[in-house]
């Protein structure tokens, strides 16, 4: 079993008297991706801030790499990387200088800067001022900076928000590679497709409460109460049928008649589960 690197234990957070997080429990092991999935304002960023010691919980305990996040000092940041929704890059420095700055702070070799720049596909742009990068390139630079020191835990707050699909795909590939290297990744997103594709476990977060927690497949199967099938017949007609005795006979007959062109089962998606549980859409 992989070593646990993050644990949220009965975490609650209030801003003034407004509850933002209510009794959160979750954990993340090395080599895994945990997705916090929820709409804007659900408490995803607050959870990251608590885990990284930027905010203190009102009650409960958050542990990162075995240390209570309320008692961490700056040395913990040598083992974690954070990608926030706002880039925080030095626009007047070049791509290389941005990474070199953090390499000096984190005592990382220049060879590693070369390696990371190749990994994120920004090596050709290394002499470009960071302020002149496109949004996708900026996000890749931010990711490069976050993984420069080979952290044990990587926090990603909406890493592909506003990116075009091909750039998002490249970032997904990188994240898979990092996970396979043993990095634990804590990902927040409101993109259910991204969560379903990327995450080993997801927590569906609504108004500060985890309404569902598990692997994407487990969650979808758990809510697959009414089994349905979508069929397209040779005639061009499409049907969505619930699994009843009558419909099974009908489908069997169509199969015998060889008139079915396509046949798919209709499991719920994370989006539909979230909608069913909260009455809210994710995006």
């Amino acid at each position, binding site marked *: 079993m992989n070593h646990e690197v993050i644990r949220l234990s009965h975490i609650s957070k209030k801003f003034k008297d407004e509850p933002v997080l209510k009794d959160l429990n979750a954990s993340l092991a090395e080599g895994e991706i945990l997705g916090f999935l929820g709409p804007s304002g659900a408490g995803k960023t607050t959870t990251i801030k608590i885990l990284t010691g930027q905010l203190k919980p009102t009650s409960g305990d958050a542990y990162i790499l075995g240390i209570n996040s309320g008692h961490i000092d700056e040395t913990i940041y040598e083992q974690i990387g954070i990608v926030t929704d706002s880039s925080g*890059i030095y626009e007047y420095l070049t791509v290389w200088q941005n990474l070199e700055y953090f390499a000096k*702070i984190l005592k990382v070799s220049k060879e590693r800067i070369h390696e990371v720049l190749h990994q994120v596909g920004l090596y050709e742009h290394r002499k470009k001022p960071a302020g002149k990068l496109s949004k996708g390139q900026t996000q890749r630079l931010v990711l490069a900076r976050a993984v420069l020191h080979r952290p044990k835990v990587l926090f990603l707050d909406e890493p592909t928000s506003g990116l075009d699909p091909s750039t998002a795909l490249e970032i997904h590939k990188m994240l898979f590679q990092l996970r396979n290297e043993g990095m634990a990744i804590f990902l927040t997103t409101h993109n259910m497709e991204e969560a379903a594709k990327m995450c080993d476990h997801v927590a569906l977060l609504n108004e500060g409460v985890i309404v569902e927690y598990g692997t994407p497949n487990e969650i979808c199967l758990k809510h697959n109460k009414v089994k349905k099938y979508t069929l397209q017949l040779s005639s061009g007609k499409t049907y969505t049928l619930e699994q009843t005795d009558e419909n099974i006979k009908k489908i069997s007959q169509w199969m015998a008649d060889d008139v079915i062109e396509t046949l798919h089962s209709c499991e719920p998606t994370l989006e539909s589960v979230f909608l069913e549980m909260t009455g809210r859409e994710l995006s």
Partner: protein
Amino acid sequence: MTIHMNKVAAIAQVKTKAFMGKNCIIMPLFAIGFTFIMRLLYHNMDMGSDAPMEMLDAYVLSMGLVMNLSMTGVYCPCLLLAEEKEKNTLRVLMTSSVNGLEFFLGSILPVFVISVIINFLLMPISGFMITGSSLAVFSAVSILSSLTSCIIGMLLGIFAKNQVSAGTLITPVALILMLIPMFADMIDELSNVSRFLFTGILMDMVSDISKNADKIIKPESIAILIAEVVVSIVLFIFFYRKNGFEKD
């Protein structure tokens, strides 16, 4: 809180680059330009035979020094800190294993050094050269004054959310530090305040040097200068502990 010199040096290096940006570099250039123009003006004005040119040059130097301390020393650290907050780079740094003391030292060091260099550079520009033992006293006072102004700048920076609010916060402070000593000779009440300001003490000292006074600085002025460094550090620590570098 430990200090890692690699981090301080890295921050200082980037802060120096940031200082060279148009928003900050204009401040020392302004002090230099102002001193140069004032010198030209005084030299081209008919001041009468009673006004020794040396004293006028000394006045020009003291005006330039006060301007440098207020504009470079106070304005630049505050602006650079506000810029870090505005661009969210401060949060990134603070979550990259940099502690508050390292950030403070790395931020203040380049501005402090530049401010001190400009203080000395203003001597040939104003035409008033301080030599001998007076130079040693001038150096000490100039260094203490630059240090105080930089710490005040960082202190103001805690309360500045962005570069615009930094300007709003700095303006009254810079005006107090500049205008009170400048008009202290004309208004007695201002003179009483000026002798408690590091800018006022510096101006008086340069004036006394030009008059070849026996004592170019009073012991109580030295005590005030040291007290101001200490008070500004204490205030900075107090507000840093209360708010961090970001007052939400």
